[in-house]
């Protein structure tokens, strides 16, 4: 197989399946069940994961390879994220099969958009050319803008979609301006060329400004404070399975871009961007946790908690060593498992209409749905970071990377924040297991636990448990994924034959 096609094989497969789902949606009569389309999409995501496996075999045979004139680079890092994104999509789609069955007649669009979004996210993780990163980012963003407003009948849906769209495009403009300044400083948008030139550029301020702009743009996408304002509103109005998808997969992809750009592209400017990373990490952890303390709505609470978790993940970025990358990667897996788990339980409890929204609505849930409450409790404990859950080792590796990088104070801030976080997670957990409120309306619907939902919940629960009990296998995997990012020491930017100043313009 030509290496060009192989380099983008998972993306190509996802696109083909997305188009197939879209065509089949148009062919099906309106009243017919859309479940087969969902299964088709799930198989598409599975094939994409298998395609990433094929790429890995090829890497073992010939080493890291590139495609499409060097814009796409397949290494263990990109394959790791391909697996993660494919896994997230499979689990979320499994849980969505029955969610969209009754009230929605156009569920095929949901499955197609999820696949297209995943295509963009995967493209982000494997491109080493900022143009391709931008295209991937937009493919994933545009799909998620639409998904956020998928419950057309609900008044909050279009509002959520609009806020996501406006602030997302705003962020994209910053990201693009950063790329433009990067191009101005180095004359290229290829990450390896940027890495070679940005340390010796004739306009160092331009490079610093470029990195700051890119950080702002991606900070919006991963909802780092102070760029987080859209998160609670969007999560509240979007359907729960969509929140499960968009709080994990696009964030993982954006963090992958951030890792490649900062550690691979601009290590020469590390003394400058490390300060920004510290500020963003502290603000995200603090604002996320303090904001979550005030929330009554469970989805808003999880939105603020996701801001805090983005901050925890960013703590790992402060080390310039392999454990920074492996810590960030491990955290993104652990966070994906537990956050998807928590949101899928919410999906199962409150159903499509989402009448159960506040903590009061969940009070006494353990009496009615003991299994679901126990599972939600387990995911909440993992989000706190209790030992024997994935959240514990995620935080452990992220904070130990910071300590290793000489940022002990940052790890202490992170630990203090984890203490604050206990309050609101435990408030929800305590509500689940306390006596039902006397005046509470019987909001809790009891949709039947169907096989696909049970499989998705079991998958998320087992992943959280295994990451907490036996993290060795995944840790081994993330450690194999780091060499693609931190290859050469940062101090010596490769001396190249390029002119350090742009050619004189003949005017």
């Amino acid at each position, binding site marked *: 197989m030509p290496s060009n096609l192989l380099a983008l094989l998972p993306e190509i497969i996802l696109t083909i399946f997305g188009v197939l789902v879209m065509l089949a949606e148009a062919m099906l009569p309106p009243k017919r069940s859309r479940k087969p389309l969902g299964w088709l999409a799930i198989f598409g995501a599975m094939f994409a994961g298998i395609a990433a496996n094929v790429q890995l075999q090829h890497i073992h045979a010939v080493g890291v390879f590139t495609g499409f004139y060097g814009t796409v680079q397949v290494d263990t890092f990109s394959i790791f994220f391909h697996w993660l994104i494919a896994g997230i999509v499979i689990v979320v789609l499994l849980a969505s099969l029955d969610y969209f069955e009754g009230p929605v007649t156009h569920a095929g669009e949901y499955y197609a958009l999820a696949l297209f979004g995943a295509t963009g996210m995967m493209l982000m993780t494997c491109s080493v050319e900022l143009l391709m990163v931008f295209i991937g980012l937009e493919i994933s963003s545009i799909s998620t803008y639409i998904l956020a407003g998928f419950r057309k009948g609900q008044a909050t849906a*279009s*509002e959520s979609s609009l*806020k996501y769209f*406006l602030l997302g495009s705003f962020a994209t*403009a910053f990201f693009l301006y950063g790329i*433009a300044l990067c191009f*101005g400083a180095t*004359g290229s*948008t290829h990450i390896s060329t940027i890495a070679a030139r940005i340390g010796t550029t004739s306009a160092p301020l331009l490079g610093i400004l470029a990195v700051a702009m890119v950080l702002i743009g991606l900070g919006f996408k991963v909802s780092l404070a102070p760029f987080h304002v859209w998160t609670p509103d969007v999560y509240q109005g979007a359907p729960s399975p969509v929140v499960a998808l968009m709080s994990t997969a696009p964030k993982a992809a954006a963090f992958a871009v951030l890792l490649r750009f900062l550690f691979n592209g601009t290590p020469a400017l590390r003394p400058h961007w490390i300060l920004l990373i510290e500020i963003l990490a502290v603000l995200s952890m603090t604002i996320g946790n303090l904001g979550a303390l005030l929330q009554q709505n469970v989805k808003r609470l999880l939105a603020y908690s996701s801001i805090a978790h983005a901050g925890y993940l960013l703590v790992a970025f402060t080390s310039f060593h392999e454990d920074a990358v492996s810590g960030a990667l491990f955290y993104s897996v652990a966070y994906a498992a537990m956050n998807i788990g928590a949101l899928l339980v919410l999906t199962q409890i409150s159903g499509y209409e989402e009448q159960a929204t506040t903590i009061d609505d969940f009070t006494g849930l353990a009496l009615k749905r003991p299994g679901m409450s126990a599972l939600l409790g387990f995911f909440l404990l993992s989000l706190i970071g209790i030992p024997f859950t994935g959240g514990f080792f995620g935080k452990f590796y992220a904070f130990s990377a910071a300590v290793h990088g000489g940022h002990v104070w940052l790890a202490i801030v992170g630990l203090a924040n984890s203490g604050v976080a206990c309050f609101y997670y435990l408030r929800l957990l305590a509500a689940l297991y306390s006596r039902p409120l006397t005046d509470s309306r019987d909001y809790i619907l009891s949709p039947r636990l169907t096989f696909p939902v049970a499989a998705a919940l079991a998958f998320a629960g087992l992943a959280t448990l295994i990451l907490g009990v036996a993290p060795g296998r995944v840790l081994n995997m993330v450690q194999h994924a780091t060499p693609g990012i931190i290859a050469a020491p940062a101090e010596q930017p490769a001396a190249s034959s390029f002119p350090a100043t*742009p050619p004189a313009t003949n005017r």
Partner: protein
Amino acid sequence: MVPIAFYLILAAILFCIGIAAFLIKRSVITIFMSIELMLNAVNLTFVAFSHMWRAVSGQIFVFFVMVVAAAEAAVGLAIIIALFRARQTLNVDQVNLMKN
């Protein structure tokens, strides 16, 4: 000929106008237009730098920005129409159903 710095300063000013309009304006359509203004400021920057470096890759980037902006406009206007149907208003101050 006009020095390159002039183009860059103009682009920076346009970008800042876009940010200011995004933050100040209350109509969804105007906010959307201010984002387009920011994207065009980026395009101007790209073209100027492309000229400076004598590299066409910057101009190719501009084409992609235009294409993606068009796709974004298609989705964005659809979302705005959906919002107007649901709420009969395009003022962002009245689009505030979600509070804690």
